[in-house]
């Protein structure tokens, strides 16, 4: 229907974005009827999302002819932004931005670097940036989920943790099982993505490869490669961030610092 109304590809894209946003806002309003208030979060995320992706698309168009090493700067910028964004899911955790940035940099960075070195990811900007950004974005989500769950677990079990401390336990002993729960639950989306690959969803990268003329079998296998890389980087990120956050949740005198209120 829209195709017949809009001649320009840009106008068509904006119209499609508007309809998708309206649908998302309708769901937000539906949630509001059940007293779940997502209005401002969703509105800000939608506006940010469209502005950011259009900006990146424009930059990518400019960078198509840029030297390959410039992708390092772009990926670094993405990691810094990802660290800052996912740290917001860890309110009151001291040092959350630093921990998130380091974990995403190590998790997503290591996997991207190894796979690029091994020749799995092509060094061309048009390949490295989209695949790298997928890895970083998923590491960011996993990190946010891990920190959010860790925080919730600690706040829900403050009494048990402080009781264990009062009995002479080390911070790591008091909090270990909550960190394990956080790691496990943060990886559920990545594992489910891998489980349901090709059955429940055919991700965008494969669709893009098919549209640009790749052979379907290779496109399918490469999609698996990307999702497996995402699981590896997400797992590493989650392990690192929960390990680092455990140290930041306590003072040097083994006092629990992460509390809802004092």
């Amino acid at each position, binding site marked *: 229907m829209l195709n017949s109304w809009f001649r320009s590809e840009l106008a068509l894209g904006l119209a499609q974005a508007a309809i998708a946003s309206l649908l998302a806002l309708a769901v937000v309003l539906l949630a509001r009827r059940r007293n779940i208030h997502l209005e401002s979060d969703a509105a800000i995320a939608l506006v940010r999302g469209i502005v950011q992706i259009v900006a990146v698309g424009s930059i990518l168009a400019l960078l198509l002819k840029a030297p390959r090493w410039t992708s390092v700067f772009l990926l670094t910028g993405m990691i810094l932004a990802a660290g800052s964004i996912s740290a917001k899911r860890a309110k009151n955790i001291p040092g959350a931005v630093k921990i998130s940035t380091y974990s995403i940099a190590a998790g997503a960075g290591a996997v991207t670097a190894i796979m690029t070195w091994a020749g799995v990811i092509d060094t061309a900007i048009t390949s490295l940036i989209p695949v790298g950004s997928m890895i970083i974005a998923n590491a960011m989500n996993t990190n946010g989920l891990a920190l959010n769950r860790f925080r919730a677990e600690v706040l829900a079990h403050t*009494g*048990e943790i*402080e*009781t*264990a*401390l*009062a*009995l*002479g*336990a*080390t911070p790591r*002993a008091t909090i270990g099982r909550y960190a394990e729960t956080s790691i496990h639950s943060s990886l559920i989306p990545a594992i489910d993505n891998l489980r349901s690959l090709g059955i429940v969803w055919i991700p965008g990268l494969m669709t893009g490869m098919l549209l640009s003329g790749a052979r379907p079998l290779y496109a399918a296998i490469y999609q698996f490669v990307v999702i497996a890389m995402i699981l590896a980087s997400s797992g590493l990120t989650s392990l690192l961030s929960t390990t680092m956050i455990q140290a930041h949740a306590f*003072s040097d*005198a*083994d*006092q*629990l610092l992460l509390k809802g209120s*004092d």
Partner: protein
Amino acid sequence: MNNTSGPNQPQQILQADRLGRVVGGKTILADVSFPVMPGEMLGIVGASGSGKSSLLRLLNRLDEPTSGTVFLDGTDYRQLPPRELRRRVGMVTQRPFLFPGDVAFNLRFGPAQRGENLADDEVTRLLEQVGLPDFASRDTAVLSGGEQQRVSLARTLANRPEVLLLDEPTSALDEQSKLGIEELVGRLVRDQGLTCVMVTHDRDQARRMCQQVVVLEAGRLIQSGSTSEVLDA
């Protein structure tokens, strides 16, 4: 350090020395000093929000004082490793927070943190002390409130503390369980020569159990002395 004992009197085992705690600009406690003598039962009394529990948490350094310190047997507690301090100054909280598993696992938790295994007969002895013989293999999930609090007390005693901190240990219990815990704590203090600091909002409970009291109001110590002098004046 304020030393209130004379040359022939026993040294205080615990000394709060100008303790204060400020959180986010709000004063929770200010300039609180008092001694606790060996074998003594000292009550911290005051209205809700007066800082009683906050003070107790400073005594085993679960929270950090923003001013002052505590001396344990003459040593500034900041010089002691926190885990050793907390073994020596045990704490029983208002809610027992038992760990999932059986009663014996809970009793063994503290010693296990130091790599020690509490023997079966020691578990039995502790449970007999708190009036719960044959409870070692019971799942903590099926215990009553009074039984949970007794297990919590036995779990803290398993660490062989020199000072026992009790944070309103009977406030969540019915009258009968409350009197049972009072009798139990009183007996432990008498028989074992334990030193005990107990927070209570219940002045009658303080009269029944404590020889000495300190009274807090808005985070400040306003009175201290023998229970009869302070509470019946």
